[in-house]
């Protein structure tokens, strides 16, 4: 086979319809070897590529189908795929040609013909195709059959009821046991596509078909293996043994070179594990999953990214996976930023007492890099580490203080934000550093950081001699501050007054702030809180003190763990877009199929306890409009109604149950050793959740800077 370079670049020039027409006409005579025709057609295809409308040439191009040159035929077919849809009244001209090709002796041409026809969803064409497709699905050549299988999916998309009436779905089902593995895998792909439609048929596998499909895997192409593996989600195990047997057969696919095969195999294993009882086997599978996941990290950066986002989900559900492998997630200096950010998140998840020191050293290294987002996330992770791993807290605080010394504004601000949380997690332990923080007060210009600092000052006003002076300075710009800072100032000045009720200065300050809040502010939240404080103070300052300085619930890092029911559901989408964004696809893709575990006697009781049903909600036709064009917002503070930024089960009211169930996984199996990793926590009483509503944490908690789909349909309105 020649690898000679083509010379077609010269055809990439905008051409006029008239010229092409004339050239085609000229090519009808004296065109030896059809060179002229080929040239014009190439020019036309190039113009289609550039987006120039070539459809007026329909009548001139179609006759070229008479040319016995395969290359020309393919170009004309490409023309028809591009413009056939816009020519419903003329397309019948081509049909005889199509039919001729459908009955060609050459299977490649037969397949080409039905493939092309099925790309033109116009009734006349579909009509003609129906009869041909029926033959082709039984063609003796496997290449034609495998093409026909996909054609059924296309025909079904165009008109589901007609395709059903023609009996295509049954014929596809018969192809599931075709002797040729490629045909089987394409039939599976087509059925899966049909089964995923909201108006499609119900596609479910029984054990014997599932076994037959698995047998075909060995002979299918890598893509075919993916389609087959994927379809195993449609097999619902009724007995533990069925799930276990299938899993053992799927396990060997983990050694495949194609990362999509590996991830899809992992998806199936995770799914089947929900139906297993044998702890040893579950442990064995978890052990087996780790190395292939790490190997995915030596693929291209894009696949690494997909793998990392999935690993983040998997390690939350199956904590034994990769438990001791935190080192492989250390960032390389030249990793793309999206890989670095994803790795950082995993490093934090895998951090525990034994490796906290190493992780911290890495995080400190990252905090001196140049990418602002990455640095911020690194600083934030140091703080989270302090909260998560108590024995490492001292070192983390020291690291944060070092970072504050750099005086890089965004580093200082980020550090202040996390230090506030550390104060809450370990009350009375680190207050000694407050003076250091106060030195950097002027550097704080972001609302979140400023509010955090104000909270620190207010909360510890009793131990700071100059608290009143500091607050006095801070309230100077009260009226210009954003609401979250104003709220913080209001609470802080009330606290100050309660601590130092004798101080004239404090009295004057609180009076001033309350007056502003109640008289000059339009925000009802702020105004009402102002009134409330004012009355409390007026009626009984003692009780006001108890209310405002009430003991706060201990802070934990629990809230950034997804609850198990939601995880079980998300993991059914391993490898797909849903797993990248950590959202169920039906919540951000219109008409996407949701998935949920099906309850059977074999379902693990713990999985059953947290079972989440599929919400068959459709996206509203006019999706809610959020930010304008521009870079993906890393730290959006605007509310996003349809897409809760915090992982939440799709059904309202589901939260409480899921939370309780989440506590249940401690008893489950040897494979869940999460109990060790958790700090003492008050289940179901998530202090962060409350803070979120106040906006104190920037609206979306720690997951705010995760990748997310933009719900902006308007950008697509071209």
């Amino acid at each position, binding site marked *: 086979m020649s690898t000679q370079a083509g010379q077609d670049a010269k055809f990439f020039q905008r051409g006029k319809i008239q010229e092409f027409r004339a050239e085609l006409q000229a090519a009808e005579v004296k065109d030896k070897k059809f060179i002229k025709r080929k040239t014009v057609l190439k020019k036309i295809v190039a113009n289609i590529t550039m987006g120039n409308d070539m459809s007026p040439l329909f009548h001139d191009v179609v006759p070229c189908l008479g040319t016995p040159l395969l290359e020309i035929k393919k170009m004309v077919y490409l023309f028809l795929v591009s413009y056939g849809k816009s020519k419903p009244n003329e397309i019948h001209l081509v049909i005889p040609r199509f039919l001729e090709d459908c009955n060609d002796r050459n299977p490649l041409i037969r397949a080409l013909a039905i493939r092309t026809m099925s790309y033109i969803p116009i009734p006349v064409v579909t009509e003609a195709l129906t009869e041909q497709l029926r033959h082709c699905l039984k063609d003796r050549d496997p290449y034609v059959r495998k093409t026909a299988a996909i054609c059924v999916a296309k025909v079904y*998309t165009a008109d589901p009821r007609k395709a059903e009436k023609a009996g295509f779905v049954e014929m596809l089902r018969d192809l599931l046991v075709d002797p040729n593995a490629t045909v089987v895998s394409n039939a599976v792909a087509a059925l899966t596509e049909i089964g995923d439609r909201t108006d499609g048929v119900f596609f479910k596998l029984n054990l014997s078909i599932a076994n037959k499909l698995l047998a075909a895997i060995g002979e299918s192409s890598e893509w075919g293996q993916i389609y087959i593996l994927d379809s195993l989600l449609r097999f619902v195990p009724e007995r533990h043994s069925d799930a276990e047997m299938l899993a053992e057969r799927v396990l060997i696919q983990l050694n495949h070179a194609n990362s999509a095969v590996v991830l899809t195999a992992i998806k199936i294993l995770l799914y089947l594990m929900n139906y297993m009882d044998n702890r040893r086997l579950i442990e064995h599978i978890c052990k087996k999953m780790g190395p292939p996941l790490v190997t995915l990290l030596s693929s291209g950066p894009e696949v690494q990214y997909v793998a990392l986002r999935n690993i983040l989900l998997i390690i939350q559900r199956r904590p034994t996976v990769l438990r001791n492998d935190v080192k492989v997630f250390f960032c390389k200096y030249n990793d793309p930023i999206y890989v670095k950010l994803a790795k950082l998140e995993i490093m934090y998840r895998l951090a525990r007492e034994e490796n906290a020191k190493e992780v911290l050293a890495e995080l400190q290294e990252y905090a001196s890099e140049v990418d602002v987002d990455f640095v911020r996330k690194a600083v934030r992770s140091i703080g989270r580490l302090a909260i998560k791993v108590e024995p490492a807290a001292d070192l983390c605080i020291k690291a944060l203080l070092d970072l504050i010394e750099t005086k890089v504004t965004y580093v200082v601000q980020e550090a202040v934000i996390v230090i506030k949380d550390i104060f809450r997690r370990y009350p009375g332990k680190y207050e000694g550093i407050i003076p250091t923080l106060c030195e950097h007060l002027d550097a704080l210009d972001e609302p979140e950081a400023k509010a955090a600092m104000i909270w620190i000052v207010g909360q510890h006003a009793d131990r700071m001699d100059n608290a009143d002076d500091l607050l006095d300075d801070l309230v100077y710009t009260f009226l210009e501050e954003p609401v979250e800072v104003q709220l913080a100032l209001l609470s802080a000045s009330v606290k100050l007054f309660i601590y130092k009720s004798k101080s004239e200065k404090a009295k004057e300050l609180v009076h001033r702030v309350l007056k502003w809040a109640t008289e000059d502010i339009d925000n009802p939240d702020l105004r009402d809180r102002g009134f409330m404080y004012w009355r409390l103070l007026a009626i009984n300052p003692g009780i006001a003190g108890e209310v405002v300085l009430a003991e706060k619930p201990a802070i934990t890092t629990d809230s950034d763990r997804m609850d198990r029911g939601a995880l079980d559901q998300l993991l059914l989408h391993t490898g797909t877009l849903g797993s990248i964004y950590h959202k169920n696809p039906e919540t951000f893709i219109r008409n996407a199929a949701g998935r949920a575990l099906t309850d059977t006697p074999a379902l693990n009781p713990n999985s059953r306890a947290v079972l989440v049903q599929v919400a068959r909600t459709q996206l509203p036709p006019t999706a809610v409009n959020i930010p304008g064009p521009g870079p993906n917002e890393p730290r959006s503070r605007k509310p996003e109604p349809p897409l809760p930024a915090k992982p939440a089960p799709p059904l309202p009211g589901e939260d409480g149950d899921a939370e309780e169930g989440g506590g249940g996984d401690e008893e489950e199996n040897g494979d869940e050793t999460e109990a060790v990793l958790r700090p003492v926590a008050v289940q179901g009483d998530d202090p962060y959740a409350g803070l979120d509503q106040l906006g104190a944490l920037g609206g979306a908690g720690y997951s705010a800077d995760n990748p997310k789909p933009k719900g902006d349909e308007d950008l697509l309105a071209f």
Partner: protein
Amino acid sequence: AFFIFNQKGEVLISRLYRTDLKRSIADVFRIQVVSNSDVRSPIITLGSTSFFHVRINNLYIVAVTKCNANAALVFEFCYRFISIAKSYFGKVDEEAIKNNFVLIYELIDEIVDFGYPQNSEIDTLKSYITTESVMSNSIAPEESSKITSQATGAISWRRGDVKYKKNEAFVDVVETVNLSMSAKGTILRADVDGHIQMRAYLTGTPECKFGLNDKLVIDKNDRTGASDAVELDDCRFHQCVRLNEFDASRTISFVPPDGEFELMRYRATSNVKLPLRVLANVNELGTTRVSYDVSVKANFGNKLSATNVVIRIPTPLNTTNVDCKVATGKAKYVPAENVVVWKIPRVQGGQECTFTAMAELTSTTTRQVWARPPIDVDFQVLMFTASGLIVRFLKVFEKSNYHSIKWVRYLTKASGTYQIRVRWSCAFITRYWLTSACCSTDLVLRLVMVYVTLRSYAI
């Protein structure tokens, strides 16, 4: 849909597989990604539409979908497209794409149907998608059914009619060493990404068996305790390898594709032998000078040697000049990249090379933040494997029972993956700059600048 864009955002290839997308979606990609200087993800989702892209030689290979697509599959397909294009045209750049666009349309019609990747084995594709003009009535039915059975068959990667006068097989074991060493000299991460590349020129349908070290532990979990054993954390095989046989008896048996292919990929993290030991000492002398002391020692037998050793030593952004002294190789300051590049054509096993340099800095106060990149070492060592992996045998069985010659070669290399972080023995430099800036009037300006970059992310 599948697109190829050039750097300017012009569409070079556009193929829509589904009716839910229009050609105009290309404009969205151009605006959102090509003309966006701050793209921070290979996947972008707007509404229900998702764009996946892979960049190569200033081209964007793009897949667009409105489904909850399998992201791994999409990227694997893009990679595959690139390797097919490389094999057909030799290189993948704007020129090659434009010169072969008709052929590319043929290819992508063949390898994807309705968004589902189909047979993408290069060898098979080349048997029926060619640059030569084919008369549609000239293909004999037997010929075409041979093609179709290969394209859909159990051994879709090999034609049955391969013939060679001389039967040969070449095995290349290529290992890439990843090293990340902290400034204190502790190894943060050292592992090996290995792959075994095979070029098989064998007649007929040969059955091959492949054997590695005797003491090979492939699954860490069945560790026997032997400390000198070569341990592979994980291995992945070309689709020709029978995975069930590997699972049952750890034998690697397969019918190879014709020509070159990657038989196996593996990863090792234990007992990694680091071929080069790098020690670096960097001292800040006052505010205007930095001294460097770097030594490289070859840590393998003296019969072997490392070749094409390139050591990249980063210098501060405000470096004006670097005075380098080396006994072996050549060292040169490259201002555009802020590094000193020290090239040594050959380092014999056991040899130690040293580098000393003095960098002069300007003393401006408006400096950018510098991330102190690590020292990076590239090299190649022939006939050496960092993991210790050895090919013991390759057996070829074919029904005609011919004699075949097998060759094995080993190569360990690093390119951009062998990194040694540097400790600045004075207070670290970014800090120094910032504190010095604090005393000057430039402070406000500087902080404002940082703030602006920050905001541009947050908009």
